[in-house]
């Protein structure tokens, strides 16, 4: 029988290191603020924000549009025999706002941005660039991690909004064509059934997922060992761990939200 203890110990070690990374980054930013300086390079933050935000819009919009469209089509055909296809708009709207929007965006951002962060920081670690930044007394976490972390944390909710809107757009288009639901009826029905807690749940999740993806990606990048192969290995691990953690936290959030509000 496999002994689970070493795996649990290793997982807890990684978890505590990720928390340590967050705490140290905040402390290094605090040090800089105390010196009367801005906590991170604004240019670097805007560069990362552009990459996470604008750069991810085409992917997020396209994938969400197709998923929204497919979701509406398949559920609509299942509901049509019972004359319940009018349930398609709220189903897609609630499903995406609360669940699929943050989750799908989290997976896409983990794959697109998390992988890039890990590869970039990993290459810098291997080339001693991170150590050189530390040796200059610049605080590598403040300098490298904080703009990346903030960009993914703050831009995730914006991307989730893009995902929700395009998914609903896709669903509205297919509903018009396949089930004769006019756009206006679709919009009214979707908005009518959508409650504020669905929107809040989606927004809270998207902030949380952004933080998880950023932290996992930066941690994996800064702990790379073993040259180019190490960078490749860390990048794969970063995507796998980030996606798994996002799905795990999504399940946890749903359990908490359902037990608190939906009973």
């Amino acid at each position, binding site marked *: 029988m496999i002994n689970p203890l070493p795996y649990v110990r290793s997982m807890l070690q990684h978890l505590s290191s990720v928390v340590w990374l967050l705490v140290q980054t905040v*402390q290094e930013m605090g*040090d800089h603020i105390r010196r009367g*300086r801005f906590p991170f390079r604004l240019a670097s933050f805007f560069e990362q924000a552009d990459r996470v935000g604008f750069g991810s819009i085409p992917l997020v919009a396209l994938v969400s549009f197709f998923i929204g469209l497919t979701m509406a089509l398949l559920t609509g055909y299942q509901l049509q025999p019972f004359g319940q296809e009018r349930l398609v708009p709220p189903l897609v709207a609630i499903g995406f706002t609360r669940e699929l929007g943050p989750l799908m965006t989290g997976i896409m951002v983990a794959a697109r941005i998390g992988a890039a962060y890990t590869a970039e920081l990993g290459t810098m670690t291997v080339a001693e*660039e991170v150590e050189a930044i530390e040796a*200059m*007394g*610049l605080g590598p976490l403040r300098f490298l991690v904080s703009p990346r972390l903030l960009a993914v944390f703050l831009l995730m909710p914006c991307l989730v909004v893009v995902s929700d809107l395009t998914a609903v757009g896709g669903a509205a288009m297919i509903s018009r064509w396949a089930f004769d639901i006019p756009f206006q009826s679709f919009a009214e029905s979707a908005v009518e059934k959508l409650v504020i807690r669905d929107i809040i749940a989606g927004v809270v999740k998207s902030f949380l997922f952004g933080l998880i993806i950023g932290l996992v990606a930066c941690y994996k990048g800064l702990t790379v060992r073993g040259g180019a192969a190490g960078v490749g290995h860390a990048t794969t691990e970063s995507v796998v761990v980030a996606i798994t953690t996002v799905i795990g936290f999504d399940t946890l959030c749903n359990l908490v939200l359902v037990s608190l509000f939906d009973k």
Partner: protein
Amino acid sequence: MSDAPAIELRDVHLAFGENEILTGVDLRIAPRERLVVLGQSGSGKSTLLRLILGILKPTRGSVQFQGREVSKMRRRKLNAMRQKVGMVYQYSALISSLSVRDNLALPLEELTDKTRDEIDALVDEKLTLVGMSDARDKMPAELSGGMRKRIGLARGIIMDPELILYDEPSAGLDPVISSVIDGLIIELSEKIGATSIIVTHEMGSAFKVATRIAMLFRGRIIAEDTPDGIRNSADPVVAQFISGDTEGPILEGGK
């Protein structure tokens, strides 16, 4: 020279798990001195530099910079200390996403209140000093190994440090560029009056730049002397290292 050492290492031990790298290093480096640390590849020479910078912490012993214990410094003190130290890396460690100008300007922009014009003037001054003023707007990937090393050197001295640490400054360079780097090390040390620690196993460079040489072997300093003293050392390990003989205690398993 004042008696108070710029750097003092006392009984420094360092181990990574079972692997003991340093087993009791004692070393005093006086201000404005150019100390060359010789030793085989993997003997812990570069590790010594990382201990001085506080990037690594000794498992036992003391590392002091200007009389203050490096391993006990908190983050803010450590970063303040690092601003007085310039590190020149073996592979330059220039930030690949920044131009040469931005690489040099980075610590000035992040740590000082200098204006852009003042920063540009300082960048130009240091680039001229290392003979690389034409490379100002180039990216590191566009430079040769020797050029990158000179830029790394310019970055190391951009904050006018009191201590410059050189990790294999002339390794992998052709003899001419290697001599240029050696000349720069001497010139910089004399011009800005900084203390220098140069880690190398290039014997020609070592004798050219050093005011004192220390030999690291099996985790300890086994010899410390002037370049002439080391050249004429009776110690079989030192003698074999200098001559490059394959016969001797280094490959036999020690003294």
